[in-house]
C-alpha cells in the first residue's frame, strides 16, 4: 500500500473524525454514581454484618430468656401433675405469675425447684426427675 496514502488517511482520521469529547456533565454524573455505589458498598460491608450480628444477639438473648421463663412459647398451665412428671422439660414453661394456681403444695415445690434449675442453667438442658 502507498505509504503516503496511509499517512494521509491517518491525518484525515485524526483531524476530522467526529469523536466525542468528555464533558463536565458526564464527570458529575460519574462522581454521583460512584458516590452512590460506594455508599451501597459500605452498607453491605459494614452496616449489614452489624445488623445481622444484632439480630443474632437478640435471638440468643431471647432464647436464654425463654429458658428463664421470660418469653414463653408454650403453655402448661392446665397440665396435670402426672403429665408434668412425664414431661419434666415442659414444667419450667409454667408462667411465674400463675404460681398461686397450683393444685397442692407438692406441685408448687416440685415446679419451683425445677424452675430454679432452669434459671441457674445458661443453656437448655433436660430437667432431672425428682
Amino acid at each position, binding site marked *: 500500500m502507498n505509504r503516503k496514502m496511509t499517512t494521509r488517511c491517518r491525518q484525515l482520521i485524526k483531524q476530522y473524525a467526529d469523536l466525542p469529547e468528555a464533558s463536565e456533565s458526564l464527570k458529575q454524573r460519574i462522581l454521583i454514581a*460512584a458516590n452512590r455505589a460506594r455508599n451501597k458498598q459500605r452498607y453491605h460491608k459494614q452496616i449489614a454484618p452489624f445488623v445481622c450480628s444484632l439480630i443474632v444477639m437478640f435471638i440468643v438473648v431471647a432464647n436464654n430468656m425463654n429458658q428463664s421463663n421470660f418469653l414463653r412459647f408454650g403453655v402448661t398451665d392446665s397440665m396435670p401433675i402426672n403429665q408434668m412428671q412425664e414431661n419434666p422439660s415442659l414444667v419450667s414453661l409454667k408462667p411465674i405469675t400463675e404460681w398461686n394456681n397450683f393444685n397442692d403444695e407438692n406441685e408448687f415445690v416440685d415446679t419451683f425447684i425445677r424452675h430454679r434449675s432452669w434459671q441457674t442453667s445458661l443453656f437448655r438442658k433436660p430437667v432431672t426427675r425428682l
Partner: protein
Amino acid sequence: MEKLSTSELTDKIRECARNMEHRGISALEELYDLTASRLLRYAYSLTRNREDAEDAVQTAMVRLALKPKLLKNAQYPWSYFLRIVRNEAINISRKKMPMQIMTSIKEFGKEDPARLEAEHIKYHVSSALDKLPPAQSEVVILKVWENMTFAEIAEVLGQSPNTIASRYRYAIEKLSQYLQPFCEEVQYES
C-alpha cells in the same frame, strides 16, 4: 489536553488508583480528567453512539472507584482500563442490538465555504469509520489516537499482535478506498 505517552499515562493512572485507595471518590476526578476523553473516543468506536459510549465509560469508572486496587495492581493499568471499557461497551451494544437506529445524516452549513468543506470531509471520514467493522475501527482508534503499539493493542483486545496488525492493515486499506478523493487531493498538492 496534554498528550502523554503510554508509559507516562500508565504511571499517572497508577498514582490515581493509589490516591483513590487513600482519599476515596474525590480522587476519581483526577482519573476522569486524565482518561475520560480517550476512553470515550474508544467506546464510541464500538458503540457508534455517544450516549452508549458515555454509559460504558461511567460503568467502568464506577467499577474501578469501588475497587481501585485492581487498577493499582494491574501490570498494564491503561490496557486494563481500556479492556474494562471495551467489555462494558460490548455489553451495552449487545443489549441494544435489536433496536439499533439508523444514524442521521447531518445537514451541511451553507454560508461559509471553508466550514462547508470541513463539514464535508468530516462527514466522509465519520461515515468511512462507521463503515468499518468495529473490530477494525477500534484498532484504528487505538493506533491513530492513542499511539499505541500493536503489542499494547493486542494486550487490550486479548488477541495476537499479528492479528491486530492485519486488522489495522485491512482497515487502512478500506479507509483509503473510501477516502480516496481526499487522499488524492493531497498527493496532487504535494
